[in-house]
């Protein structure tokens, strides 16, 4: 895989750098703790949506287990805090590494059999979520069923001192995820992944090493999600299996990617913004059930009328000719 700088990358990279810089510059003027907390959670969702789309959006293999990598990252970070005096950056790297390794092992096993292509892959990732939950719940080093206290270990450290510091980490991780997504969108690696989505057999016959590409993409996707788990552990203060591996996490991630559209690398960012803003706006509706149904129905409506998601509509408005060509 030969990597060379593509001039078309310059604009997205500049935009990402500007976005991260703007987020960090805005931090001192963000008034309330709520704005910072909301911003941090939004950034974490961006990381998750982009990392899911990196593999599933590009290859067409829908993973329902993305929350596992995020959850395992959370637990690994919690274990590092509990068992060592290591600084946050060590917990962060360990979280990404372990989640990436887990995805790598799973990818090596699952993609070696053509039986797990297509919809079965989704079921395997879902099953994996339950397996990992059971292991974490039964391993005292990680949890053992009683939950893990993080706040007592991070109090007095830089990362535990303020939500603003979590925001900084979130912004940098979102930048990393966005760069990975943007690079993937223009490189041969990304093109190869998309050829798997279009027709894996043809891609294989044209010499694309689909197995290797899928495994690597899945591992990178898992590692990025795992990185996001480290600041989340600090944010929560106390982690327990039920909350960390909750099923709504991968479902919201999938919703964000679909809503924003997966044909452009930045589509999941748009989807994350819309879902997070919609959920927050509907909190004050007075009916929690209706609010959740509105979010779900909105998704179905968008899919029905916007097959390429909101990013597809944006392109259609700005560059109608390009949208027509893509539709063909």
């Amino acid at each position: 895989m030969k990597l060379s700088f593509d001039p078309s990358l310059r604009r997205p990279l500049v935009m990402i750098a500007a976005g991260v810089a703007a987020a960090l510059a805005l931090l001192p003027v963000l008034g309330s703790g709520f704005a910072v907390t909301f911003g941090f959670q939004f950034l974490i969702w961006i990381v998750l949506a982009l990392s899911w789309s990196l593999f599933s959006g590009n290859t067409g293999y829908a993973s329902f287990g993305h929350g596992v990598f995020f959850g395992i990252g959370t637990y690994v970070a919690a274990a590092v805090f509990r068992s060592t005096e290591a600084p946050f950056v060590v917990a962060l790297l360990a979280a990404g590494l372990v989640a990436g390794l887990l995805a790598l092992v799973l990818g090596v096993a699952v993609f070696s059999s053509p039986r797990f292509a297509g919809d079965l892959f989704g079921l395997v990732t879902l099953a994996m979520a339950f397996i990992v939950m059971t292991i974490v719940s039964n391993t005292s080093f990680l949890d053992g069923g009683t939950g893990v206290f993080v706040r007592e270990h991070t109090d007095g450290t830089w990362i535990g001192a303020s939500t603003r510091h979590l925001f900084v980490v979130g912004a940098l991780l979102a930048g990393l995820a966005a760069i990975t997504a943007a690079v993937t969108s223009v490189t041969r690696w990304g093109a190869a992944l998309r050829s798997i989505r279009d027709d894996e057999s043809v891609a294989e016959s044209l010499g694309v090493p689909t197995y290797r590409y899928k495994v690597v993409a899945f591992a990178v996707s898992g590692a990025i999600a795992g990185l996001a788990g480290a600041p989340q552990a600090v944010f929560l203060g106390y982690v327990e299996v039920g909350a960390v591996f909750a099923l709504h996490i991968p479902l919201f991630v999938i919703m964000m990617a679909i809503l924003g559209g997966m044909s452009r690398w930045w589509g999941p960012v748009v989807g994350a913004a819309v879902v997070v803003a919609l959920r927050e706006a509907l909190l004050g509706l007075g009916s929690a059930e209706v609010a959740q149904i509105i979010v779900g129905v909105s998704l179905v409506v968008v899919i029905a009328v916007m097959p390429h998601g909101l990013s597809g509509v944006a392109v259609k408005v700005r560059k109608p000719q390009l949208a027509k060509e893509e539709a063909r």
Partner: protein
Amino acid sequence: MTTTPTRRVRLVAAATFIALVAACGGVQDASDSQDLTSDLADAEIVAPVEGMECDPGTEPTGEPIVVGGSLSLTGPLAPTALVHDEIGKIVVEWVNECGGIDGRPLERKVLDDQSSPAQAASNYERLLAEGVDLVMGPYGGASTLAGAGPVSRAGYAYPTATNGAPGQLIGENHFPAHQFGAGVTDPTKMFDAYAQTLLGALNSSDTPPETIFFANAKFPTTLSYGAAAEAALEEDGKNIVGSVEYDLGTTDFSSIATRIASEDPDLVYLGAIGADVTNIYLAFDAIGYEPRAVYAAAPSPASIANLGDQVEGILLTSIYENHAPLGDTDIARYLAVTFSEAAEADGLFPLVETQAAGGFAAWQILLTAVNEVGVDNAAIIEWLNANEVSTVVGDISFDGFNNYGEDFNRVTQVQDGKRVLVWPEDVAGAPIDLAP
């Protein structure tokens, strides 16, 4: 890949939508509520806390006192959190019918955290940014701890109802009505008081159990409870004939039921939550086994009521049942009537028991302090740390490890189809009744 991208997208969307709808609040089970509430007498309105004036018919005026809170109105914690939501609505209406606090109306602002601790933290940040005057804690240990970050940083008092078992909690601004793990000074023995209460209840019987089988859900509270109870009972000379743990969400208990039946213990200790007890009894039924006696740590009251005669004699963890002496006050009587009416209308279990009583006690803690020192969080925190508060579950003080104060775990037994506290003696409505 045989499916088209569009078809896959639709499949994923459909699955997402279904899961989202399914994630909404659990189905409530009111059981046969009319039978359960038939004994409740009419009650006159009185102030919800001691020392507060109640002037029915006086319309409160002026700027409302806004209490913000996050609750799991949807998601897996919703069935229990909705009880706390109901209590919150009742308290606000109650206070305002009494003429408000110092003539000002009480207002409540609740945001749904969807059973997610992260959302709970975000909700409290939002409520604080919106300038609520006071806050009320959420339901669930993880959400309580997540919400504690912003609430504590903002210097607000943080009353909570019924928490799980976080060993290191919040600080001097935390005022729990019922904290699992209270009543001890040594943090490593957080559940000893609970275990001793259970042991005391069992040994108060003329025929205390000698052989006990433990089955615990892998859930922080039930595991911690179970471990402490097992150690205390074993130390007392009881014979632990079996001990198993099962994963949350288990519905098929046939293998556990078979193991219990083969040991045929004097007492089955179930560290069970939610509807586990129902499923365990179904498994007992399937193999034709009738346990001699059962103790259940944290089952939902509706699931117990729905089992009817099957659970006659079952022992339960509880902090409150609606009978004398705790239920024999004007406040408790009015609470029982208003809660049963509201809960029946909303499909909730209609009697005031642990969750409703804990929820109401948390409001009593907050309102008592507000009545004493006004809407000033620093003054509220200082006052509560220095004084005792009279609540429906007993007099609460906030001292000792983590501000937990005294342990309020008690033991209830279903006797003649009704829930009655059987231990400790000072709150018992009847003695424990264990068949030999």
